[in-house]
């Protein structure tokens, strides 16, 4: 199931399609098997977000688990006002940002992140090296610049929303974005 954020392309609310809506309803009633199917449909998206935002595989795995446990706990609060995928990814972003605020010490040093992500990126047939270079460069960005770049340039959230998520002014988002792009270009040259 391919879901888009921030505006879920599947159109309908509650979960994007009748199957998802049904799974959400069942999971809200405590059906773990239904929740597993939601997990299967969304884990790759959540993990990609966690991996790019954190730059470290082990941290991304932990954050992904945190996000799904949080989703299970908060599922009853999901009212279907947005697509389930949008709700889940936003929740995952909150988990990531809370975690980062809680302990900035865990953030990878500038020169380590790239190698960690590269090592964490599975070798897949047909994946161009250029993509891995870009992933490595993203992981090597300073954390704040990386967060803005991933949320805006990769995930497609509007700058105003990125500013709200990060609790900063929009000017700060622009400054970090420009910095991130500049650093990326330097790293990729």
């Amino acid at each position, binding site marked *: 199931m391919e879901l888009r954020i921030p505006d879920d392309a599947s159109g309908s609310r509650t979960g994007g399609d009748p199957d998802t809506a049904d799974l959400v309803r069942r999971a809200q009633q405590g059906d773990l098997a239904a929740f597993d199917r939601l997990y299967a449909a969304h*884990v*790759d998206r959540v993990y990609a977000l966690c991996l790019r935002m954190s730059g470290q595989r082990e941290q991304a795995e932990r954050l992904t688990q945190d996000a799904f446990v949080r989703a299970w706990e908060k599922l009853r609060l999901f009212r279907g006002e947005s697509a389930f995928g949008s709700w889940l990814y936003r929740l995952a972003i909150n*988990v990531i940002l809370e975690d980062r605020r*809680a302990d900035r010490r865990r953030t990878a040093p500038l020169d380590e992140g790239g190698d960690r992500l590269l090592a964490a990126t599975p070798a897949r047939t047909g994946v161009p090296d*250029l993509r891995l270079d870009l992933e490595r460069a993203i992981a090597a960005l300073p954390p704040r610049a990386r967060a803005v770049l991933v949320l805006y340039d*990769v995930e497609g959230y509007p700058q105003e929303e990125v500013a709200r998520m990060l609790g900063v002014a929009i000017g700060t988002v622009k400054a970090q974005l420009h910095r991130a*792009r500049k650093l990326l270009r330097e790293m990729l040259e």
Partner: protein
Amino acid sequence: MNAHPPETQLHDYVDGLLGETEQRAVERHVRACDACRAEVEALRALTARLAALPRAIAPETDLLPGIHARIRWGSVDARVSSADATLSPAAQQHRRAGVAGAPEVPPQPVRGIPGGRALSSRFDARQLVRPRRSLATAALLLVAFGAVLALLFTREPARPPIAAGAGHEPGALSPAVEFRALDARYTAAARELLAELESLEDELPPGTLDIVRENLRAIDRALDEARLATASDPGDPRLARLILAAHEKKLDLLRRAAALSVES
């Protein structure tokens, strides 16, 4: 040719965030200026590559067992605070005996590890500078729980009954339930110790934490698999011993790392 637009304006131009008039003005300049046109093309190429990145990456590890375990056993805080209440009187006695002389560690939100939903939300700066006394206490706690687990399983029958009430006094908890509570508490304590180690990263030999984390991940994977197996056969003492052995490995690893911190 008019002056070069500021860098911010070029980014906004590429992102389509300028007003109509401003957009047209920058466009006119870019057409006439090689340097700005090259800059815009480079920015467009970069943003196109970023937007084309795959939105989904499959984790290398199956994360679902760990999620199930945490969902079943609740959050770390809940597990830690409720663990004592779910122990049988005998197990509580073992536990008290095990930690005799050691100060009690109040339940703490733990950070930096799976299971830590509440960790971040409740975590505060004081925990970053918690003294080493807490580290030593956490180590003692782990030793104590290692002893409790061992005692629990040495007094268990070969295959304890699972069904509520089967073979137990009314109101008594089954060994499986006791074990789950101990397992959860052991896990939480191990996480606390790891969090302590993380807060002392600067005092550890370089690379120590990476090695610890790598080994913990491998042990945790084994733990998750064993726990998953116990879900379908919770009374199998062989699985419980497997979990105990994994905890012991974890304990040993953390103890060694803690010793390095104290020595350094």
